[in-house]
């Protein structure tokens, strides 16, 4: 099943919303810079910048799916042995 709207209609409908979300993101990053201290070594900052890169890359998987996986803990298939259950 696909979305009944065509891409032009999606853009017309969501352009201002996307614009607004980008401004929110930009202001959050500005706020981080204006605040005292330095968080550049915080792993979460690395995740944020990797997330932003995903938004601009072309890939087979959806961007939302990739972002979700970026922010997910790793799954190991031998977990039951590790837990001994």
């Amino acid at each position, binding site marked *: *099943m*696909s*979305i*009944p*709207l065509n891409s032009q209609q999606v853009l017309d409908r969501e352009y201002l919303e996307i614009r607004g979300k980008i401004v929110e993101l930009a202001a959050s990053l500005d706020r981080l810079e204006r605040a005292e201290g330095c968080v550049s070594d915080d792993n979460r900052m690395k995740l944020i910048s990797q997330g932003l890169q995903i938004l601009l890359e072309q890939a087979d998987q*959806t961007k*939302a*799916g990739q972002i*979700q*996986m970026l*922010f*997910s*803990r*790793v*799954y190991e*298939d031998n*977990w*039951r042995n590790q*837990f*001994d*259950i």
Partner: protein
Amino acid sequence: MYYFDPHIHMVSRTTDDYETLAKMGCVGMSEPAFWAGFDRGSVESFRDYFRQLTDFEPKRAAQYGIQHYTWLCINAKEAENVELSREVIKMIPEFLEKPNVLGIGEIGLNKNTKNEATIFLEHMELAIEYNQQILIHTPHLADKYQGTRMILDMLIADSRIEPSRVLVDHVEEHTAKQVLDQGFWAGMTLYPVTKCTPQRAADIIEMCGAERLLVNSAGDWGPSKPTAVPDLILEMRRRGHSEALIRKVVYDNPIEFFSQSQNFSFTHPE
């Protein structure tokens, strides 16, 4: 359009919410047992909670023409206390004959720990022994992917589990397909902040199809919106989806899933 909210915590909501939901077309709901926001001290607290879910809440719902069903368990967060969990699991069969009980839930994982997994497996045994359906909570945020995979591992490893009688809830972009591909039902939980929005839920329906997919509001004591299902209905209409497809997701699917439970005796409003 009439709809069914398959996962909503009405004990945390006011009677005004019942009225609003009824006005928006809600005619049925199912309420899994969950965490109260604080850890309960004894099995007696759970006995009272189960009385509330099986006796008081269906009466409150009925005043607004809403048919109320429920699921019983000790939630994943309190499952960290293995001793208390075992006492609760032993007590649950007292309530399984109550007319609005659909099964065991919402069991699951929270921080994906050994104790949580141990109690998950013991709930599974309970469900199998009493031939109950299962409703599953998957963890949130960074723990979701790992926890969902662990839950699927436990379910698939047990050949006595029928995937068609299990609902795995709170799926998102990175977990929906795996759950559906294994033959389970999947639920999407719409939250106003941090979790799945109506827009993203509509995207997932478009990408995965509407088969075995449900949508719910969770409507609990935290920031949540009990009327989130009508938000999805509106979003799908605005995109031009057919009324038949929308109705399948918000009405036909939950009724089809719940109909596998011996206690489900839903009367269609028409």
